[in-house]
């Protein structure tokens, strides 16, 4: 069985790392998975440095040959399904090592195709995603003491926000502006519906919408990164959580104030 080249192995490992990091994996996991891929294809000596915005990977074959690559991560979105699938794929690679070591070219081609398939795949159609966004917002509205009619409105707003988040994130906006626009939209929709339907409490509806946007992922990853010793990414993600929070507050606050000033 012939070993794959140094360049090819570093490309595979970097692609694995990119998918996990872009979908919101922790730094520790990205480093571990890249190391496992390199090990599986026969390069024991690999070092990596991962931050939320980029991956540095250096790989050597034991002699003087060294391959170093940097990958900049631009866009990130929460996709827990992809993290799970890529982790499973890499662990299957570990299991294969016991049969043939090191893994050869055919296995690397299969691995790359699987990665591309996972990267392209969308497990749910768009309407399911939108409806589940609606369900999140609606049931949080009920949880915080809303009535059934408020549930229906929060459900509708959640669906619309999920739909519009998809289009807003296609624009070249940063994380702060994305959350500010989305939360402003929540308040605008809630206030508009309020003019038609009397006797509803807006607070629960708006909170239900905001719960879609809260930075649970950034908070969790910040803590877990800091605890596993990756101080750089821990701080970076902490700041990300803070920025998202400020975005939410700024957007919804500005829209509430504007609505008040217009005098409805």
């Amino acid at each position: 069985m012939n070993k794959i080249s140094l360049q090819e192995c570093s490309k595979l490992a970097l692609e694995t790392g990119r998918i996990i990091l872009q979908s919101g994996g922790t730094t520790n996991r990205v480093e571990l998975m890249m190391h496992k891929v390199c090990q599986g294809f026969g390069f024991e000596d690999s070092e990596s440095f991962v931050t939320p915005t980029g991956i540095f990977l250096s790989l050597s074959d034991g002699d003087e040959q060294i391959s170093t690559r940097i990958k900049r991560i631009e866009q990130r979105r929460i996709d827990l399904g992809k993290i799970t699938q890529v982790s499973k794929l890499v662990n299957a690679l570990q299991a294969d090592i016991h049969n043939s070591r090191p893994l050869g070219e055919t296995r690397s081609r299969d691995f790359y195709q699987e990665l591309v398939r996972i990267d392209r795949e969308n497990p749910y159609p768009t309407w399911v995603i939108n409806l589940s966004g609606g369900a999140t917002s609606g049931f949080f509205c009920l949880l915080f003491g809303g009535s059934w009619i408020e549930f229906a409105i929060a459900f509708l707003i959640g669906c619309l926000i999920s739909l519009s988040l998809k289009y807003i994130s296609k624009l070249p906006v940063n994380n702060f502006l994305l959350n500010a626009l989305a939360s402003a939209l929540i308040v605008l929709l809630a206030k508009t519906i309020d003019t038609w339907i009397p006797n509803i409490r807006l607070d629960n509806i708006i909170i239900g919408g905001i719960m879609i946007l809260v930075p649970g992922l950034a908070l969790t990853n910040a803590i877990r990164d800091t605890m596993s010793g990756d101080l750089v990414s821990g701080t970076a993600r902490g700041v990300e959580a803070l920025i998202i929070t400020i975005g939410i507050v700024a957007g919804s606050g500005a829209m509430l104030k504007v609505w008040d000033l217009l005098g409805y």
Partner: protein
Amino acid sequence: MMRPFDYLTLMQFAWAFLAIIGFSVRSNLKGIRVLFTGLGGGLCWASYLIILYYTKSMLLSVFLAIILVCIYSEVVARKLLTPVSVFVICVIIPLVPGRSLYYAMRAYISGQSMQASKYIFDTLMISGTIAMAIAIVASATNLILRLRHRF
């Protein structure tokens, strides 16, 4: 104040369950994992309410509830061959202080700075408590796994 273990707590459990199922489907999680993250979310909120009833202290109940569900996700995620952080992310969502954040913002806009600072303080304390609980469970698990590996 609701009594623990009556049908109201059960309904709150069901709503947190359904909300977290919606959240995890929205972040592309598939199969049986969706059910278990939902269960964790329900457990999180229900245990928060029950502990709040007995201790009357918000931060302590947040702390204990998060510790409980973090242990839940460390155990269940390993059984389901899922990264633990995936589970923790979904499961803590009901307690993330979106509500006090909104009230703080609203109080600030209507000019009641006293109220606003109270809610901001709440928000910061709750986030800090959640962070502390996650950190404790994550490092304890790390320690246990290493010790088991060694002996």
